[in-house]
């Protein structure tokens, strides 16, 4: 955004109000910059950083004795309640924030100022179409076509497309002209095991009577591209009624009688408008409901879980058909919302590659960014310039992330990533700090030259890969995820996302985070034990104790492991394994070895950074807590550093001590 839009870069004496009324107000200063809105407490270490892109709506109340209230609702579900003592100041801040939240032009979002010249451009090459399709093992019955070179046939598709190799250009052109916005059926997933494929498209311009011989032939060719089964399942993700309504507008769905080889299925996934109001209700329930009955009723009436279930059910049907060897063609209306959701979720269920951190990014690049999900419009990256714009907003992508989370929750060991990864993706789909989710389609991104003017989110995520690892991932154990339970009782509210900033509501102790820390600690301890062993051997040799000494170390190692397991075998409570606390026994290593903490601080009470100079309060449960390898205490990201040999992560205190 432009600097001149900021009417008030700084407002003092602002009170931050605790939404739940549990804590007293915090007095501080609000700074507005071109990239962030920052609240900083005058006393104490409370800080809130809010990327401008995340500002959803700003509401101002009327002036009262306490001050003038200002409520910022954010797109990542943070709600900031402020009280400002002067009405005029409040109005100015209000206008500034509104300006911040609605840049007039996509090129004025933060991402364009965030570019680092030396940045590694690998993030922009996450998806190479050719590489991905050869990874999938696409057979010779499919081929690449240049029909969309320079986006001339379909401006919302990528330039490279894969179609049955028997399809000639006139046939493709015929199909393109018969499909809404030229989004004709193209390959997105090839199932190597049996040659079945997923193709996606938009609705046909069928109306009540129109036919297109090319489109019909093309569908037959898609069937023939499958070596084992010519029948193709045509899945219209819309409720039948909606599809009928579209017929009146000259669009609609394929008539089974005209297509020799299709079987049609309809799924009741509602449109973007229904999903928008549904999410508003679910967010409201998570933020406001005070009693159990009120909460459950509100969740129920939002219909959100029902929607998640139907999207998952449809995706499961696609995945199941593919696994059985039947190719599927999927469309909704334009083929960029519901189609993207179901097609990509089906691939997640089928292909373990898409359940890795890298593969998941490829999946998003391919089926969301590549095939033209309108992120600009759906996420409201820029302010409305026409009346239609507010109707274009819809949480289609975050709904899909929610579906992924539901599946993740059912089969956590099948995923390389953790919940934090999904939450981070959700935030940055909106934040506009990176170029990845800007633009409505591939051609938009190309004309904005995003890859040279902005940073890629993937590069940022790569640099924090450790944050997103799932400690329970078992890559080899899961193939298809077709046995997931999709009964209504399996779908629950994702409070980790919707109540992300309500510290008090989320579980205080989390097995994913603690186990990840344990694994990290185990690695360090293993290295430390090895070092100690070497040092012992060395010392013993110096002292002239040779072989027998060595043997005693070995014998001891056997004993050590048995005594370690005592806590369980011997049925004493886990406390009985005594491990020294911080700093004890440190005399062992003076001048010999780097200190290593045997005990790591538990996450439970770590609400803020242990550094006395920092004291940064963690703003959410999902924020990564980092342990210093030497003292074992928990710090925020800013207060720990990797040592020059990149082997250790240490806090400033320990670093200075050495």
């Amino acid at each position, binding site marked *: 955004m432009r600097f001149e839009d900021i009417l008030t870069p700084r407002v003092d004496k602002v009170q931050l109000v605790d939404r739940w009324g549990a804590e007293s107000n915090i007095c501080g200063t609000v700074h507005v910059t071109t990239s962030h809105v920052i609240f900083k407490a005058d006393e104490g270490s409370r800080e809130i950083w809010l990327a401008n892109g995340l500002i959803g709506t700003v509401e101002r109340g009327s002036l009262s004795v306490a001050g003038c209230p200002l409520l910022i609702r954010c797109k990542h579900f943070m709600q900031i309640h402020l009280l400002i003592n002067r009405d005029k100041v409040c109005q100015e801040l209000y206008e500034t924030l509104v300006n911040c939240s609605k840049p007039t032009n996509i090129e004025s979002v933060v991402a364009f100022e965030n570019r680092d010249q030396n940045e590694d451009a690998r993030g922009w090459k996450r998806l190479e179409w050719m590489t991905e399709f050869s990874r999938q093992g696409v057979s010779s019955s499919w081929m690449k076509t240049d029909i969309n070179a320079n986006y001339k046939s379909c401006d919302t598709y990528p330039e490279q497309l894969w179609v049955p190799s028997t399809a000639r250009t006139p046939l493709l052109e015929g199909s393109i002209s018969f499909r809404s916005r030229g989004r004709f059926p193209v390959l997105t997933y090839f199932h190597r095991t049996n040659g079945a494929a997923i193709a996606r498209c938009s609705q046909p311009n069928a109306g009540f009577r129109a036919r297109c011989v090319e489109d019909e032939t093309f569908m037959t060719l898609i069937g023939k591209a499958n070596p084992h089964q010519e029948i193709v399942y045509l899945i219209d993700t819309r409720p039948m009624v909606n599809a009928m309504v579209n017929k009146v507008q000259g669009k609609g769905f394929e008539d089974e009688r005209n297509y020799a080889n299709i079987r049609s299925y309809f799924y009741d996934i509602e449109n973007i408008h229904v999903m928008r109001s549904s999410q508003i209700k679910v967010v409201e329930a998570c933020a406001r409901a005070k009693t159990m009955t009120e909460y459950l009723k509100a969740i129920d009436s939002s219909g959100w879980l029902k929607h998640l279930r139907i999207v998952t059910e449809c995706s499961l049907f696609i995945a199941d058909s593919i696994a059985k060897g039947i190719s599927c063609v999927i469309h909704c209306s334009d083929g960029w919302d519901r189609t993207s959701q179901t097609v990509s979720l089906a691939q997640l269920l089928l292909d373990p590659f898409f359940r890795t951190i890298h593969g998941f990014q490829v999946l998003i690049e391919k089926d969301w960014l590549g095939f033209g999900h309108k992120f600009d419009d759906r996420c409201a990256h820029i302010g409305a310039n026409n009346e239609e714009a507010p109707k274009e907003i819809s949480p289609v992508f975050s709904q899909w992330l929610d579906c992924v989370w539901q599946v993740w929750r059912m089969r956590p060991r099948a995923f390389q990533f953790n919940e934090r990864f999904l939450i981070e993706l959700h935030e940055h789909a909106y934040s506009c700090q990176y170029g990845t989710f800007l633009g409505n389609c591939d051609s938009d991104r190309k004309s904005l030259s995003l890859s040279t003017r902005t940073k890629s989110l993937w590069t940022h995520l790569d640099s924090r890969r450790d944050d997103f690892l799932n400690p329970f991932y078992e890559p080899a154990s899961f193939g298809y995820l077709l046995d997931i339970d999709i009964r209504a009782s399996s779908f629950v509210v994702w409070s980790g996302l919707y109540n992300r900033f309500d510290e008090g509501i989320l579980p205080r*102790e*989390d097995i994913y985070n603690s186990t990840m820390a344990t694994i990290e600690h185990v690695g360090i301890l293993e290295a430390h034990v090895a070092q100690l062993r070497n040092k012992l051997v060395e010392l013993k040799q110096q002292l002239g104790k040779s072989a027998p000494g060595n043997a005693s170390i070995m014998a001891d190692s056997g004993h050590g492991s048995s005594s370690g397991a005592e806590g369980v075998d011997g049925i004493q409570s886990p406390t009985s394994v005594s491990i020294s606390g911080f700093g004890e026994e440190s005399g062992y290593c003076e001048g010999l070895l780097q200190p290593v903490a045997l005990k790591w601080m538990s996450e439970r009470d770590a609400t803020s950074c242990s550094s006395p100079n920092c004291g940064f309060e963690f703003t959410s449960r999902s924020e990564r807590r980092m342990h210093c390898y030497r003292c074992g205490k928990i710090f925020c990201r800013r207060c720990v550093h990797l040592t020059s040999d990149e082997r250790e992560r240490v806090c400033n205190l320990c670093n200075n001590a050495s």
Partner: protein
Amino acid sequence: QWAAGQQKIDPPRRRMELVDAIEIPRVGNVFLRQGPRREQRGSLILMGHHMIFAPQADSSNDPNNTANKEEFCILHRMIDRVVSEPRSRDPNSKGGILTLKCKNFMICVFEVLELDECMAAARTIETLSNLNGFSLDYPFFYRCPFTILDDGWRAFDVESEFARVSMNAPEMFRVSEVNKDFKVCASYPEKVIVPRGIGDDYLRISATFRDGGRFPVLAYFHRHTKSPIFRCSQPLIGPTNRRCKEDETILNALLSIARGIIIDTRSKVNAQSAKAKGGGAETQQCYSQWRYVTCGTPRIKDLHDSLAKMVDVSIDKSVSSDRWLSRLASSSWLSSIADYLNAAANVAQCVACEGTQEVPVVVHGGEGVDSTILVTSLAQMILDPDARTIRGFQSLIEREWICGGHPFSLRNAHSAFAEGTITGPYEAPVFLAFLDCVWQLTQQFQHSFEFTEGFLLDLFEHSYASEFGSFLGNNEMEKQKHQVRQHTVSLWSYVNNPEILKSYVNVLYEPNESVTWPSVAPQSIQVWERLFLRWQRDWTEVNAIREAAVQWRLKERQLASKALSLRRQLVELMKEAHLAKTLNDVRVAD
């Protein structure tokens, strides 16, 4: 799972009455269509205390056949409802279907070839699962297969609890034997802890003023704030506004510097309407130094209905999205859990909030044996780090629930399925609601409780049907009358057996002294899936995650203690090296 299965031979002491009820001792060729395992053919054997399903010997030698060849066994007491019906409407078909709905929400469906046999089996099971009284119950016939190292009946007595309290509060309380032979209060144990300055005569008079004679007794003492929690039943104020000076004196004896707080676990309306029936609540005039607060929790009848609805919706396989949430909401089970947690958190806050000192809290509802006990014991789970250990939790249940006089025999006679004449007005899953609340705490604090989810589930099952005597009877008086302590094995003797205890230890437990303040917001309360969806869902994934976390934790501990011992060796060696060097230096100097 069915611990009873380990010991199937009924001792010769078996009474004739049980045998008489068995109309058919064996039903051959039945087909298990639904139950604790996959479909299977076999036969049913009906015995005095349990029913055994014996799988048919497999004639085919298929090596891929992984069918479970073990028998399984269900205590008759575990069966909540028996349904037998013809297999089809066709009068020529002879087969019948026997459905057993268990108190742990498991449903077993057997297809029986002959309808007559099916009906006979159903009648037998129905009779044996609904015997009046508990003197013929399995615990009296159970022969303990293990040596009892730590007798659960002796592990937790009032004296040792008093010793624990007195350490931090000398001169504040005493053990009273006013209830010797249960003369003052039928539902209290013979020894109770009361304020030191109060004589037994006062207690006797107060008992006449409290519902069921439940005068105020100590439930918990907070060692840092010195605030005690007392519990009792409602005062019998009645429509004539009775008062009792002695009762007031007892409460006032608890006060020192601050005003006390009386927390009523009934809603305001219920507390007021109780007055017309002879009960009521402490008035401001008579208890002027006390603040009276209501923290409404469900009435036991409502709680019972709520469980029935909750189980009904959770076992419904076909339940569609549209109905699941609305039925979940209308069951009110989660609301009840939230209410209890809220009440307990309030009690805990009064006792342990920052800056408060010596604020006595008195908790009561109506009779003081249901929500009162639930709230006081849950408050202890929040406040007391000891209660979060396995042994402390046992002690809490023994003290508050078993000795405290929660009427287990009445409340747990049936659970979610039974209806009609076999049920009475007294059934209510109060103890289960407590376990659910504790489960909610363990979910919010996965590293703060020494026991596992499995322990809570086993306690739930044992509280309904068990080979152990702990949950028999409604109070200590009944236990004594039937000599439960002499003739049965305590559940704690079993649990504390090292081999068994091992399976209940939560390896992820990290002891800590702080208060586990729960979130009672509706967004934080979850469905206890392992309880309600236990028989509907596959748990491989959950178990695997838990196991992996446990293995990593063990490895971490093992390495840390290894590192520690190596460090010690290193220090020793360095001392030696230093000494050697010094000696050498001395020698060189010489």
